[in-house]
């Protein structure tokens, strides 16, 4: 047992690993900075939003995304694990979870949000998804079929949300501003044009 705080234990571990040449603190700094970057060039919700917006304007791209997501997404960021895209329709809504740990389409969206890794989300969204979605402010019509995907293997999922009405004249860059992280997980919808949120 130890009375050290997690921060102290992490520092001790990094020091030991560095002492034997297993980690390079400067490279770790760079890895963290890349993960925290919001530029849209590294895996992040901003990068995912660019992909979704392109799928909304290009039927050819959308088709490639749905049939061969690994190759198609590799144009944006390398995909180290299999990935599949789940297309929402007016009659079907998809939501993703990893009940066993925290599997997430990180190769495109970056690290998952903290709530995605919480016991609350992981245990409850498989059992009472409509209640959980309501906690996110998403009230699905009872007529919409709900599909929950538990990422139990190495394959990851990305939800392709429905394009909001009233955006017919919008270009790709403008559409990307409507795509939220939660809309690509299935716990939210894209921002409706003209709304404040």
């Amino acid at each position, binding site marked *: 047992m130890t009375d050290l705080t997690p921060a102290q234990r992490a*520092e001790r*571990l990094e020091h030991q690993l560095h002492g034997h040449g297993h980690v390079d603190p400067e490279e770790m700094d760079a890895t*963290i900075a890349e993960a925290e970057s919001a530029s849209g060039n590294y895996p992040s919700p901003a990068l995912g939003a660019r992909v979704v917006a392109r799928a909304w304007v290009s039927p050819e791209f959308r088709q490639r995304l749905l049939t061969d997501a690994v190759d198609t997404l590799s144009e944006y960021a390398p995909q180290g694990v299999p990935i599949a895209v789940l297309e929402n329709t007016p009659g079907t809504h998809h939501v993703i979870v990893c009940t*066993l740990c925290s599997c997430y389409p990180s190769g495109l969206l970056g690290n998952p949000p903290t709530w995605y890794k919480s016991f609350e989300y992981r245990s409850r969204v498989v059992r009472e998804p409509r209640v959980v979605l309501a906690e*996110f402010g998403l009230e699905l019509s009872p007529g919409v079929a709900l599909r929950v995907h538990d990422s139990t293997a190495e394959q990851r999922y990305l939800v392709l949300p429905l394009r909001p009405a009233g955006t017919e004249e919008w270009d790709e860059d403008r559409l990307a501003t409507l795509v939220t992280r939660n809309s690509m997980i299935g716990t939210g919808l894209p921002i409706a044009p003209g709304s404040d949120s």
Partner: protein
Amino acid sequence: MHGFGRVPIEVNDPLFHEPWEGRVWAMWSAIGATTIDRFRFTIEQMPPAEYLASGYYERWLWAIERLAAEQGLLTGPDRPSAGTWPSPVAAAWEGRFRPGDSVRVRNAVTAGHTRVPRYLRRHIGLVERLACVWPNPGDSADSGTYGQPELVYTVAFEGGDLFGPGADHTLSADLPESDLEKV
């Protein structure tokens, strides 16, 4: 496990809530001396009460401390290899199941590692499609290296069958061929 409350949704949550969380995350990314499956399996060794009381990166830290010792990383420069990371686009072959087949999930009780969730064991679902090919997670956790890949299927289950008549959703999961049997 049941009994958890509302999802703790944060607005504009940071990637890491404390700098040490980022260090732990980056440490695991850097060392990679074993399989992701053995990492997950190590986290599962945490005493249950401690597991539930710890935050996400505290569980990572607990596991990396033990894996670093187990793999000899705290005593010298040598680092075991987990072998080649499997390909996400590996070609599939003829499997035992086809879309539309009814399958029962094996009751995958093991002292080792499995990715078959308890809530699906012994339930019957419909094969939707081939999900991917990937080394068996139990084998990868046990050996610490990635072995021969196996077919993994996406199987769909009725929510009402799993969770009672109030559940009107469909649930799907990706399960290894060796954990499924035809019915």
